[in-house]
C-alpha cells in the first residue's frame, strides 16, 4: 500500500472525491427506483446514505456561504461590481440540492409506508433472527401451541421484543425503533377498542391457528421489470426439493418481466436493475 492508496481511502471516507459523488448519486437514484418498484423493504444501504447525508449537509453550508457573500457584496458595493453569475450559481446549486432531497425524502417515505403496512412481519423477522436465548422470541410455532393462561394477555404482549436486537437488517436503526413504537401503539389501540373483549387466547396479533398466519408479509411473487446488466443472468426459482432451478436466461441490455423472487439474488449482486 503506498501513499496514493492511503490518500484515496481518506478521500473516500470524507465523501469528497468527485468521482464517487457521481457514482453515489447514481446508486442512490437506482436504489430509489428499486425501492419504489417492489413491495418488500430492501436492505438499508447505510454507508451510501451516510455519505449522501454528509454531502447534503456540506452542500447546504456551501449555499449558505454563497448567499451570505452575495448579501455582503450587495451592501458594500454597487450592483455592477457584484458577480453576475452568483445568482445563477446559487439557483443551480439549490435546484440540485432540492432534487437530491426529493429522492431521499421519497425513498424514506416509501420505506415508512411499507413498514407500517407490514410492521408485524418485520418485527417478527427481526426478533426471530436474533437467536438470543435470553430474549423471548415469539416465533410462530410457539404462539400457536399454548398461550400462558396465568396472566390476561393483551395484544401488546404479542409485539416482539426487539430491545436485544443488534442486527437491524434490512432496516436502519431508526426505522427499527419506529416500527416497534408504531406496532406497540397499534396493539394498544386494538386492545382498547375491540380486542379487549375477546377471550385471552384470541388476543395475539401473531396468531397462526389453523395454519394460517395472521402476520402478512410483502408479496415475494409479484412481477417486476428488470434490465439485465451482465452478460447472462438466469432467473432462479426455488425447486421442488428446496434447491434452485434455473429459468430463462436474460442477456445483457434485455428488459424482462419476471417474478421478483427469481431475480432477487441477482439484484442484490447488482447484476440486474429494477425499472
Amino acid at each position, binding site marked *: 500500500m503506498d501513499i496514493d492508496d492511503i490518500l484515496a481511502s481518506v478521500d473516500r471516507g470524507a465523501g469528497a472525491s*468527485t468521482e464517487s*459523488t*457521481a457514482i453515489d448519486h*447514481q*446508486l442512490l437514484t437506482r436504489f430509489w427506483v428499486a425501492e*419504489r418498484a417492489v413491495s418488500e423493504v430492501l436492505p438499508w444501504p447505510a454507508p451510501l446514505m451516510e455519505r449522501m447525508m454528509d454531502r447534503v449537509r456540506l452542500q447546504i453550508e456551501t449555499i449558505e456561504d454563497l448567499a451570505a457573500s452575495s448579501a455582503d457584496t450587495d451592501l458594500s458595493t454597487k450592483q455592477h461590481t457584484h458577480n453576475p453569475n452568483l445568482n445563477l450559481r446559487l439557483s443551480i446549486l439549490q435546484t440540485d440540492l432540492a432534487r437530491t432531497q426529493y429522492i431521499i425524502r421519497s425513498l424514506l417515505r416509501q420505506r415508512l409506508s411499507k413498514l407500517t403496512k407490514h410492521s408485524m412481519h418485520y418485527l417478527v423477522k427481526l426478533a426471530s433472527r436474533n437467536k438470543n436465548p435470553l430474549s423471548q422470541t415469539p416465533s410462530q410455532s410457539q404462539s400457536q401451541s399454548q398461550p400462558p393462561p396465568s396472566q390476561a394477555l393483551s395484544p401488546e404482549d404479542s409485539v416482539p421484543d426487539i430491545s436485544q436486537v443488534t442486527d437491524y437488517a434490512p432496516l436502519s436503526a431508526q426505522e427499527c425503533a419506529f416500527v416497534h413504537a408504531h406496532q406497540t401503539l397499534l396493539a394498544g389501540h386494538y386492545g382498547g377498542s375491540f380486542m379487549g373483549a375477546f377471550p385471552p387466547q384470541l388476543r395475539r396479533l401473531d396468531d397462526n391457528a389453523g395454519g394460517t398466519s395472521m402476520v402478512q408479509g410483502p408479496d415475494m411473487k409479484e412481477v417486476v421489470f428488470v434490465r439485465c446488466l451482465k452478460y447472462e443472468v438466469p*432467473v432462479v426459482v426455488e425447486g421442488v426439493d428446496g434447491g434452485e432451478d434455473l429459468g430463462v436466461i436474460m442477456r*445483457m441490455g*434485455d428488459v424482462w418481466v419476471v417474478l421478483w423472487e427469481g431475480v432477487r439474488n441477482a439484484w442484490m449482486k447488482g447484476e440486474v436493475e429494477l425499472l
Partner: protein
Amino acid sequence: MAFPFPQGIAPSEIAFLAEMEMVTIVPRQRLEGLELLGGPVEPLAPPRRASLPLWLALLLKRQRRANIIPPTWLHPEPLSLILEVESQHQDYKHAFSPPPPLPGQPSMHEPGPEPTARPQYTPDGEKYFAAPPFLPHNTAQARTSSGEVPALPYHWIEVGNMLLDAASDDLMDPDQIRRLLKDLREVRMSKMRAGVDVLDAAATGGGGVALTGVGAMELGEERGFLTGVVDNLRKIGASKEQARREQLAEQRANGGYNGTQDEEEDYMEF
C-alpha cells in the same frame, strides 16, 4: 398514509429521472465549474460544447444562456429510419427496435466479440454497472461509427418532448420530429398491447416476458396493467402449480426420505 403514490415509479418520477440524462449544449456565457450533488459540472466557456444533465441544460436554455444541441437520434432522418425498422422490418414485427448498447456491449447489428460488462467500482468497493439515465445516449457526439443504425434511448419520449417544448428552435424541423415521435409511439404502443397474450409465461416461476427496447414512459404507462394481468394469471394458475409441486415432492419422498422436509419448512416462511 406515509406515501401517496402506488408501487412502481410514477410518470412524474419518470420525467424526473429523464432530466438526469446528459445532453450536449453550446453555452453562450462563461460559468465556472460547479460541484453538484449529482457530480461535478464542467466549466462553461463559449463556444466549447459541454455535457450537462438535461435539467440544467433546460434551466440555462430558458434563461437564454445556452443552446441545446439535439441528441444524435432526435433528427428527422434517424427517427424515420427507426420508424421504418419498427413498422416494416420482419424481425421486429412483435418486438421493439433494439436499444442503444450498454458499455461493453456490441451493437445488435455487428456481431462482435462476446459482450463483457465493464464495471465501475462504488466507494464501498462493489461492482457497479452504469445504465440509463447515466449513459451518454442523448449527447450529440454519441455516434460511434458511421454505419451505426440509430436507436431510441430508454427515455426517448420524455427527452424528445421536453426538448420539443423548451428548445424547439434548436431542433431541425421540429414539426417533422413531433410527427415522427407520435408515429413511433403509436406503432410501439400497438406492439405492447398485442403482446398481452404471452404474459402467461411471466406468471410461472422461472419464466419471463422480454420487453427489450421498451421506453421508460411506455413501461410506466403499462406497468399497472401488466402487473395486474400477471398477478391474476398467477392466482388462477396457483392451484395447478401447487398440485404439480406436491406431485413432484411425493415422488421424491417415495424415492427416499433424506431430511429435505426441514428445508422446505424454512422456505414456507416467505
